[in-house]
C-alpha cells in the first residue's frame, strides 16, 4: 500500500495530490459505511464523509499511519463525533424504518424473511450506544482487526475487546425477542 507521506513517495513529490486522493477514494465505501452507521442516516453521512475526506487530503502530510484506510476512518470517526455532538444527535430515525438493502431472493417468502432479519439486526445495532456501535461496525461489518480498531478509535486493544464484549451482550438482549420469533422453531 502506498504511503501517504510525500517524503517517502520518492522521486515525484509533485504527484502527491492526485495519488493521495486516489488512495483515499479506494476506501470511500468503508468511510461511508462507518459514517452511515454512526449518523444513522444518509444525508449526514454524506456530509461527514465529504468533510472528513477533504480534511484527510489537506492534512495528508500529517498522516503517520501506514494504512490510508485506518487514517481516513479515524478522521471519519472523529468528524462523526463532532457532528453528532453539534447536532444534538437528533438524527431522523424515519429512514431506520425503511427496508434495508438485503439481497433479494427468488423465493418471495425468503425475501420477506431476509428483509425482516435485516431490519431487526440493523435496528438493534442502531440502538446501541455510539461507543459500542462503532466497535461492532468496524469489527463485524468492516471486518477490521483489533489493532486497526484500536488505532481508529484511539483506545487500547483491551478496551476494544471489552467494548466488543459489551456490544455483543447488548445486541443479544436486543435481538432476544427477535431470535425467539424467527429462530425459535429452528
Amino acid at each position: 500500500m502506498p504511503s501517504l507521506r510525500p517524503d517517502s513517495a520518492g522521486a515525484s513529490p509533485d504527484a502527491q495530490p492526485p495519488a493521495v486522493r486516489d488512495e483515499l477514494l479506494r476506501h470511500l465505501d468503508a468511510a461511508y459505511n462507518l459514517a452511515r452507521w454512526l449518523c444513522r442516516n444518509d444525508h449526514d453521512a454524506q456530509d461527514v464523509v465529504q468533510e472528513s475526506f477533504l480534511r484527510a487530503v489537506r492534512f495528508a502530510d500529517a498522516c503517520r499511519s501506514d494504512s490510508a484506510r485506518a487514517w481516513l476512518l479515524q478522521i471519519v470517526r472523529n468528524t462523526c463525533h463532532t457532528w453528532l455532538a453539534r447536532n444534538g444527535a437528533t438524527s431522523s430515525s424515519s429512514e431506520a424504518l425503511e427496508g434495508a438493502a438485503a439481497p433479494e431472493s427468488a423465493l418471495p417468502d425468503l425475501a420477506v424473511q431476509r428483509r425482516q432479519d435485516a431490519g431487526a439486526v440493523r435496528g438493534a445495532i442502531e440502538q446501541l450506544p455510539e461507543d459500542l456501535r462503532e466497535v461492532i461496525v468496524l469489527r463485524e461489518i468492516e471486518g477490521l482487526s483489533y489493532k486497526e480498531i484500536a488505532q481508529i478509535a484511539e483506545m487500547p486493544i483491551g478496551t476494544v475487546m471489552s467494548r466488543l464484549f459489551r456490544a455483543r451482550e447488548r445486541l443479544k438482549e436486543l435481538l432476544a425477542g427477535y431470535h425467539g420469533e424467527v429462530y425459535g422453531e429452528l
Partner: protein
Amino acid sequence: MNCDRVRLLIDAYTTDELDPSAALDVEDHFKACPACAGELDAVRTLRRTVAESAPKYAAPEALRRRLSIPAASEAGAAEPRHLPRTKWPRVALAAAVGVLLLLPWLGLYWNASRAGAGRLAAEVTASHIRSLMSDHLLDVPSTDRHTVKPWFNGKLDFSPNVVDLGADGFVLVGGRLDYIDGRPVAAIVYRRRQHVINLFTWPAAGPDRPPSLSQSKGYNVVTWTRDGMSSYAVSDLNREELQQFVELFRPKPATRP
C-alpha cells in the same frame, strides 16, 4: 482461566486471533464449563446473524463523483457542503447573498480578469510543471536575493521583487526567465521542504487585487495584483502553507525601476 477472562477472549477465539497457547487454555475451559461453551455458540450465532443481515453501505455514486474532482470539492473545505436535496433553502439563501455581494465585482471584471485569471492560472501551472520536468528550474541558482534580483537587469523591462524568507522556512533557491501571457516574466523559485514554489511576476494594468486561491491540475495557485504587478505563486505545497508564503511575501512593496 476464569469465566470473565474467557468471555473477553471468545470473540478473538472465533476469528483465530488468539495465540495457540491462549486458544488451548480457552478450549480447555469450554470443555469444563458448559456456560462458557453456550456463550461460544451464542457469539457464533450472533456473528453470523450480523454478517448476513446487517447492511454494508456503499458510498453513493454522486458522493464519489464529487470527491473525485479536486477543485470542485476542495472549494468547500472549510464548511461541509450541504446537499440541495433537503437543505436547499439554506443553499439558495447563501447563493443569493453571494451573488448580490459579487454582482458589482462580476460586472466589472468578469470578462477582463476572471476569464483571464483562469487561463493564466493554467498557463503558469503548465510553466511550473515544465520547469520541474525539463530540469530547467533555474537560470540563476542562488540563495542571495542580492544576486537573484540584479540578474534580471537587462533581461526584463521591470525589476521583480525578491524577498528573503529563509527565516520562515521558505528558502530562496534562485530565479529564471520565463514566458507567460505573451511576454517575458520573472520566475522566482523558493523551496519548502521538497516542495518547489514558482513565483511568477510581471507588470499588469488594473487595480490591486487581494490574493485568491485556485487549483489547476492538482496544484495550488495563489494570484494577486499589487502596485501594478501581477503575481502567481504555484506549488504542490498545501494551500495553508502556500497562503502563508504569499502573506509573508506580500507586505514588502514591489520595487520598480
